[in-house]
């Protein structure tokens, strides 16, 4: 089966006065129908730019300089094929027709993604009528149905609500309804629960899982929160400095992480077996300057495993397969076996 979305060696660079910022620097992954790929990383890791480049909404001066973003298409005449989104003109009619219809996105702050001047219902109806040939009435009924599916009580009334009249959790639900109303095959969720309280976060995670079962879309779940990613994902990608450090199925990644960066991240959160008031594991130093050119391991210098080993600095970055579905970009792990 061809994956729903396949990204190959994606490079997104920002040409700034200070130099070239390699926000995404050779990222490869794929995701299938009904599966969720979690993308975790700290701020500045490039995880959001990955999501933006799939929708072709990378803000200038960012540019896709290399790579393929292959979206599986099922055309209306029954033919199948793959469309390379990286080749599209971001402003073209085709790109616009794909956004929202085939690939949809939800964001961290739903207040900023809805227009405050229009009702939630009208915005959902607009999205639907833009992409499919339905009458106003039909669209309205679909919108009400969708609002009901995302768990908004009394959707036939709430469809008239303005975004500010809904609570944070309800707004996030409404945004999910808008994203899914055209039945996209890929949903990109960029930190969708970060602004929410834990009880609401749990509701939204549960809702996304349930909707995925019903609609079968593939989800890219971008987050800095390891716990949320662990709960929703089937596979996980750990990104750092624009590169994939480790990729594995969720249970493998959290049970037997191999990359020192993944391990350090997991250890820095106090868990059930961390003694109270004990010193938490930290990661020394900071992320390298974004415009720095690092051919070797970008984690070199902060890593507690290599101890300044020149192998790490000199070995060019490469993501190596260590087991079925498990890849690691650490010279120590890969060379030592």
């Amino acid at each position: 089966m061809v994956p729903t979305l396949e990204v190959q060696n994606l490079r997104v660079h920002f040409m700034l006065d200070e130099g070239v910022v390699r926000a995404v620097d050779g990222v490869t992954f794929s995701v299938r129908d009904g599966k969720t790929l979690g993308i975790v990383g700290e701020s500045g890791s490039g995880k959001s730019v990955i999501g933006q480049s799939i929708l072709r909404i990378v803000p200038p001066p960012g540019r896709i300089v290399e790579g393929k973003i292959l979206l599986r298409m099922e055309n209306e005449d029954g033919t199948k094929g793959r469309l390379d989104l990286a080749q599209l003109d971001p402003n073209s009619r085709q790109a616009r027709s794909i956004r929202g219809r085939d690939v949809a996105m939800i964001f961290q702050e739903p207040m900023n993604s809805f227009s405050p001047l229009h009702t939630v219902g009208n915005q959902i109806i607009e999205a639907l009528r833009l992409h499919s040939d339905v009458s106003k009435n039909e669209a309205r009924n679909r919108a009400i149905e969708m609002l009901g599916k995302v768990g908004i009580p009394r959707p036939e009334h709430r469809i008239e609500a303005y975004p500010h009249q809904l609570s944070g959790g309800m707004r996030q639900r409404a945004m999910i309804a808008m994203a899914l109303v055209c039945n996209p095959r890929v949903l990109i969720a960029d930190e969708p629960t970060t602004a929410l309280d834990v009880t609401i976060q749990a509701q939204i995670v549960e809702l996304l899982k349930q909707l995925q079962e019903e609609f079968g879309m593939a989800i890219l779940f971008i987050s800095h929160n390891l716990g949320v990613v662990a709960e929703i994902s089937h596979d996980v990608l750990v990104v750092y400095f624009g590169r994939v450090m480790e990729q594995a199925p969720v249970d493998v990644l959290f049970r037997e992480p191999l990359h020192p960066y993944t391990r350090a991240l997991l250890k820095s959160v106090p868990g059930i077996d961390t003694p109270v008031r004990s010193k938490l594991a930290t990661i020394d130093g900071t992320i390298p300057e974004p415009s720095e050119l690092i051919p070797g391991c970008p984690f070199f210098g902060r890593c507690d495993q290599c101890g300044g080993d020149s192998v790490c600095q000199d070995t060019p970055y490469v993501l190596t397969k260590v087991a079925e579905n498990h890849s690691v970009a650490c010279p120590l792990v890969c060379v030592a076996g």
Partner: protein
Amino acid sequence: MSEAQVLLEVKDLKKHFPIHRGVFKKVVGHVKAVDGVSFRLRAGETLGLVGESGCGKTTVGRMIMGAYRPTSGNVWFQPPNGQPRIDLADIRPKQMKPLRRHIQMVFQDPFASLNPRMTVRQILAEPLVVNKVAKGRELEARVRELVELVGLKLIHLNRYPHAFSGGQRQRISIARAMALYPCVIVADEPTSALDVSVQAQIVNLSLEIQDKIGVAYLFISHDLGLVRHFSKKIVLMYVGRVVEYAPAEPLFARPRHPYTEALMSNVPSTRPEMVGHKIILEGDPADPINPPSGCPFHPRCLYAEEMCATVEPPLMEVEPEHLVACHFADVLNLTGCDALGCAV
């Protein structure tokens, strides 16, 4: 066993913000942001104040700092020099000024809480100068001491805040808060804006400072895992009220309030094999303008019965030091964190 001195005793603290409407700004209602909160903070210990957004935890912190005047209730503060204790809720701003140095604050957003036009040296020196604690050579020595205390270098002193990362800025905020040898620090979500690896650094630093200097923290956070790591005792708030107030260990082993149980089960776990059953609460946290009758949690509670909608449960001691505001605290057998297999 002799316990440390109580530095801060908050008693039945309330803050109701009026809602004004219309041309004449008539008061049409009140936001009951804090509606009867009591707890004690002892010297050198950490009290965690936990709750979801809008539960009033930040307002409690601000009332202690004197930024808001409480509607009613007391904030008894014991000054370190052996003077009789003073009610911060009931003093004039002029009287507050000399006391303020004993209670300092660290804020959530390190990008907004440091003046961008001042160098680190000026930021750290200001509280010392304003309070006439030190000047000249003594001032410089104290500033250097502070920089070292929080793990920054002397070369950082002449830089402006924009030159620092989020974690480093939070270190500067902590140094500023420590400048006047306070005995209480109110830390309002001090690590929420930081990445996890940096968060761990700030947590370690705060614990180190506490071990070294013995300052007491009122640690306001929504992160149960962090609060457990930090705190000796925990206050859990829901819509302006305390639902549970207990030492950390028994609280996590066996919570007595259904809200605490749900909150614990909702903390995302990084161990997929340990994901316990989640208690998904329905609806949103209650509206503090118009809180539900009876127990404010009853519309979302899994165990609610008829009386919960009408009678407000008082905060009762179910075990020594373990206070709960639930009619059925004795009857319910709730699952703690350990049994749920959650992350905290």
